[in-house]
């Protein structure tokens, strides 16, 4: 099985926000939640770079480790998914995640938050693949259709790569060698304990 990862080539990202919009539209993500977001480092300064960030589907995911009700599970593709039926909205995963991926649809009195929502790597949840119940809770299941996550698939500059970790690392490495520079595979060391060496 493939080990699915995201890789954002910050030297290619032009901050068009298409990945953010595509994700929201594809999964009909609720108001106030962005499963993917684009952050601009050194905005307006020399060396400005933009990075598109979502759940990185970590190895030994901290959210999974800290969840008091075991709502998380890792698929055979190494995608970290969760069950909204099991989630009690305690917020621990939000505080454990290094990437700010888990989000909550509402902020109520006494810290009530509702069911956690995060990037599913376009592969739904525990419900039957491509079922209506799955779509309502987690959005579409493109992986089950044999497709990769939409954000990466429709990235106009191919800055955002999704797919097997080894393959996208090779693509990135080739780019860095060809153009002579690269700012690193953002988040890889934090998420997978490794980096793309060039």
């Amino acid at each position, binding site marked *: 099985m493939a080990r699915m990862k995201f890789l954002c080539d*910050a*030297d290619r990202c032009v901050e068009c*926000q298409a990945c*953010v919009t595509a994700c929201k539209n594809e999964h009909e993500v609720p108001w*106030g939640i*962005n499963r993917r*977001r*684009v*952050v*601009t*480092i*050194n*905005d307006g300064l*020399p*060396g*400005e*770079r*933009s*990075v598109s*960030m979502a759940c990185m589907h970590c190895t030994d995911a*901290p959210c999974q*480790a*800290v*969840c*008091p*009700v*075991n*709502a998380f599970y890792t698929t055979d593709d190494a995608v970290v998914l969760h*069950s909204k*039926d*099991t*989630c*009690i*909205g*305690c*917020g*621990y995963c*939000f*505080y*454990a*995640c*290094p*990437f*700010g991926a888990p989000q909550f649809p509402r902020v109520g009195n*006494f*810290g*009530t938050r509702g069911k956690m929502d995060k990037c599913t790597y376009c592969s739904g949840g525990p419900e039957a693949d491509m079922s209506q119940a799955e779509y309502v809770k987690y959005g579409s299941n493109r992986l089950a259709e044999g497709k990769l996550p939409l954000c990466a698939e429709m990235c106009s500059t191919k800055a955002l790569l999704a797919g097997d970790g080894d393959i996208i690392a090779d693509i990135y490495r080739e780019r860095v060698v060809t*153009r*002579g*520079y*690269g*700012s*690193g*595979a*953002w*988040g890889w*060391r*934090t998420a997978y304990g490794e*980096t793309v060496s060039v």
Partner: protein
Amino acid sequence: MLKTLMLRLPALLALVALIAFAGPEVRAQQVNPTESSVQEDALMRALQSGEAVSGRISIPDARAGKIIKPDNKDWEAWHEGTVTTLNVVLLVGMLVLLAGFYLLRGRIRIPGGFSGRTIQRFNAVERFAHWLVAGTFIILALTGLNLLIGRAVVLPVLGESAFSTLSAWGKIAHNYLAWPYMIALAIVFVVWVLHNVPNKADVEWIKQGGGLLKDGAHPPAKKFNAGQKVVFWSVVLGGAALSFSGVMLLFPELAGSSATWQLYLVIHAIVAGILGAIILAHIYIGTLGMEGAFDAMGTGEVDENWAKANHSLWVEELKRRRPAAAPGKAAAGAPGKAAAPAA
């Protein structure tokens, strides 16, 4: 109109010329794309503890601008490691200790057995405050502990769905019962603080080990002995720490950054573990561990022999104040009034 255009034309031309000529110059000023300031590695190395690599974000949630916050993993390791282990060690350790104590010492009996005469030890207000703080604490402790070890202990028994429902209700109970707990804590403090100021009798009591280890040994004590004072101050100070950190957890905006919220959760869980262990000992000695002790909080009336053995100075005090009324329920007529000055 034409005149203004004529006037502005040179300016426009100048601007176009400026852009045309400035072009190569701007390009020359461009930073090296390998500039270390934009490399993830360099930014991560420059991070201080508790910081995040952050930038500008166009969505309204400003906090989403924090792109990578590696310290969150440290908190996760703390929570799953130190905090959980410490709680298990404290609680299981105390249970083992109490079981060992019971096997060695057995139930501590009243010297001379029950006399049949009772003295009022705690009035209705005291008992109400005690049981409110006790009842809410037990639920808070169990629901809190459930978040730490429930998935290892309860989940395999109940199954995922039932355990999730239980935990969701537990969370609601924890959030809402915190308030009556805090109120009861305040009442307990007001009602008993004067009786819990340490005095000379406590030194003697501690020297004799509270008479816990030797049969028949009962060092003198006022209304509360040194052991009970330890429980009182643990409940008050531990409860205050739990209340403060708990309110911060309930209102994350008050806690400020996520790093402080994480710190409050670590404090909350560790203090809860320590206080829970102390309370286990308190529950033991108040029920199984000592004959006649439960009546103090049950009916509020303790046996005279029990009172004389465990709180000799308090009984003498009562006798001095109301020679006719105390001790002896039959003679007192109004035991509530008799005990009132002491309470």
